């Protein structure tokens, strides 16, 4: 693999993190990342720590988005493993996941106890309603970006209908639509 020399060339000007740096930095990203950790990840990894230059960050992000799995979690694996192999991946992944999981479970345990209190259930309904709005807004923005690519919009609509109102299982929706969607992108995307 030729990736080794690429990295060796970059090490002069870029910081190389230790295993505990990886853990602590991803922990910071995790607990500041409210409703999407990626902007915080960029600020930490590119601007503060300089582990990646902006172009490397974009390339890595596009892979993490293309591959299945939560994007920021994928990024923790990629960066951790790049710098310190399995140990680095474990450190970065623990940083991003452990504390948020503990907080979420504590909140959920409180919910089981106090979920019937009207103020609590009302708060949760309000939060869910707002979060659904974030999804709607995000989906519409993503669609708007593609306004000059009719094939993207057509397949987005088909995926929405299949996975949403029609209620087909997601594996079926993806397996049926993906070949045609990719073929269309092959034909019409530059």
């Amino acid at each position, binding site marked *: 693999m030729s990736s080794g020399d690429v990295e060796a060339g970059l090490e002069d000007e870029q910081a190389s993190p230790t295993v505990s740096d990886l853990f602590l930095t991803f922990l910071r990203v995790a607990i500041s*990342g409210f409703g999407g950790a990626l902007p915080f990840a960029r600020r930490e990894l590119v601007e503060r720590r300089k582990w990646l230059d902006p172009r490397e960050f974009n390339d890595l992000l596009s892979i993490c988005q293309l591959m299945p799995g939560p994007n920021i979690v994928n990024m923790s694996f990629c960066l951790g493993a790049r710098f310190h192999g399995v140990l680095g991946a474990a450190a970065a992944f623990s940083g991003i996941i452990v504390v948020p999981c503990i907080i979420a*479970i504590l909140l959920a345990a409180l919910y089981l106890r106090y979920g019937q209190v009207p103020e609590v259930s*009302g708060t949760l309904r309000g939060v869910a309603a707002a979060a659904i709005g974030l999804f709607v807004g995000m989906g519409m923005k993503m669609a708007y970006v593609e306004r000059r690519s009719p094939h993207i919009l057509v397949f987005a609509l088909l995926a929405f209908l299949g996975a949403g109102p029609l209620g087909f299982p997601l594996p079926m929706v993806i397996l049926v639509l993906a070949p045609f969607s990719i073929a269309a992108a092959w034909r019409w995307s530059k």
Partner: protein
Amino acid sequence: MMPRDPLLDLTLHVFFVSFLAIGGANAIIPELHRMAVESNGWMSDGTFADLFAIATMTPGPNVLLVTLIGWYVAGIPGAVLSTLVMCVPTGAAAYYMSRLSRKFQKARPRIAIQRGLAALTVGIVLASAFILMRSTAHDWVAYAITAAAAAVTIATKANPIVMIAAGAVVGALGFV
């Protein structure tokens, strides 16, 4: 008949579902809902929506909904296993792809796959919103909050936490 162990069912199902999370963990909400509410009856629609809200309120990656479903179904072992199974195989795959794809940055098949899957992601994110809306029994105040949050997301660069907090306040005051 022997009752099936939910921990095993959960683990296998999440493992399978994790590979469908193209574009992020939000993309599998329809499938998580099918798994937890429709197919196995592990929880009600209302509980699913509440766990979604709790995951949203917690800082961190949005994979936390999977953690909470695991916790609700099978306690701490369920939380740990479902989180690991959700994240580790796909994370490892992403790493190997990141090493490979330095060579394929501009390759046409890669662009076609990326664009083709991105199209599906757009639709699935909107489908997630649809399914969550259906499972929360939206009244008109909830629709208004949803519409306002969507409008702010589209029109401004405001931090999402502002909308979440506003929704929490309106809900806590008993309007939803």
